[in-house]
């Protein structure tokens, strides 16, 4: 961990970051996450992300959830990617994020849900489309177009279009509904 934090050579920090994937302890996760936000080398940051994914614990999910509030877009997107790959390990964390008062955090949580492969993700997306007060439901509509299979999903999308008089949402909903038509 000290090599990752302190070594002056990028190559050494890079390899240290990859090596830490073998140690799934919370202290290592905290070190990786903390370094992700400060590391000047993009390559080392990518190595850190790879290790967080490999460790893949609920602590990783919880720490990445905190990173969704970062001012750094790269860090936010990295956190989304890690949460997406963690699949069901991140579901509990993401469920809580859908109630966050910050709409930007809710948008990112929806982006995570849209990549998950569990059926519960579809149910949560449906709830977002049905009840979220912000236009960020648009993102959920797109994912529901791919993942939604039930008539209720189509009805939920149509109801969202009526709730918001927004041309982009209408367009996104039409695309989603086309994808959902039964074949």
């Amino acid at each position: 961990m000290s090599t990752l934090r302190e070594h002056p050579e990028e190559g050494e920090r890079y390899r240290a970051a990859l090596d830490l994937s073998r140690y799934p302890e919370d202290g290592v996760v905290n070190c990786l996450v903390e370094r992700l936000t400060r590391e000047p080398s993009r390559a080392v940051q990518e190595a850190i992300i790879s290790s967080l994914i490999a460790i893949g614990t609920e602590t990783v999910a919880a720490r990445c959830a905190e990173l969704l509030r970062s001012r750094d877009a790269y860090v936010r997107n990295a956190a989304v990617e890690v949460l997406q790959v963690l699949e069901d390990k991140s579901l509990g964390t993401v469920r809580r994020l859908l109630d966050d008062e910050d709409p930007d955090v809710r948008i990112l949580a929806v982006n995570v849900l849209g990549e998950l492969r569990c059926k519960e993700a579809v149910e949560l997306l449906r709830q977002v489309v049905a009840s979220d007060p912000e236009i960020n439901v648009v993102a959920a509509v797109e994912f529901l177009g791919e993942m939604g299979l039930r008539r209720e999903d189509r009805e939920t999308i149509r109801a969202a279009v009526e709730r918001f008089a927004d041309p982009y949402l209408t367009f996104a909903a039409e695309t989603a509904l086309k994808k959902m038509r039964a074949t």
Partner: protein
Amino acid sequence: MRLEDFIKLRDYVYRKSGVWFGEKKLYYVEKRVEARMRATGHDDFRTYFAWMRFDTSGREFQELMNALTVNETYFFREYHQRKCFAEEVIPEISVGQNSSAPRRVRVWSAGCSTGEEAYTLAIILQEMTAGLPDGPVHWEVHATDINTEVLERAREGTYGPREVPEEYLNKYFRRSGDDFEVVPELRRQVRFYHLNLLDRDGMRSMRDFDAIFCRNVLIYFDDASRREAALYFYDALRPGGFIFLGHLESMSRIAPIFKLRRFRDAIIYQK
């Protein structure tokens, strides 16, 4: 296959793998998807897609990708990329070296299969480095694969007459019964060995390469593994080294640490 179904599948495949199919490929995709539907017992696209989409093992997605991106390997495949390597990348790699030390070019064919790509690279290197004005360039090709059977075939270096490019036939091959065998002088400079691209220790031993060719291999990996392999490749390259992917692949979507270099004949990623 309805256009809406094609778009739904196409968008999903692109998001997961970076492989893009234009609408002209609808028939191509349709045939392969229908084959997967038959193989998995699904009567309609909707249920097949849902089943594949929510499959937590990821196996069916991989099978689908295998079907959609059937790969043939043959000599001098993807001509424009080879041309770029020969006429633009090799000169840049050779010229950039410290002039006081012997010049050396190291190339890696990752996922070399039966060896056609590795021997193609060897021919190109031999052709392009012979007779250079600033003195000789020592080159070597390392070719790895996870499949030991194809490696055996690659080491033999024997190919059917229709597989071998005519302009190099007399120079780099000799007849072996009905087939043609790569000449020993060329084979000696190509090393074939077993390597799993996700084996940390094995990948760490790959160092100081000027160019890596890993075409149509990473698309078969899941997201996490693809990123891991890309990071190993990054570490294996010298600063300024190049990585060549398949023409449908994008490294930017895997790990945004390589820069895009636009050459006359191709766009390549560089460390």
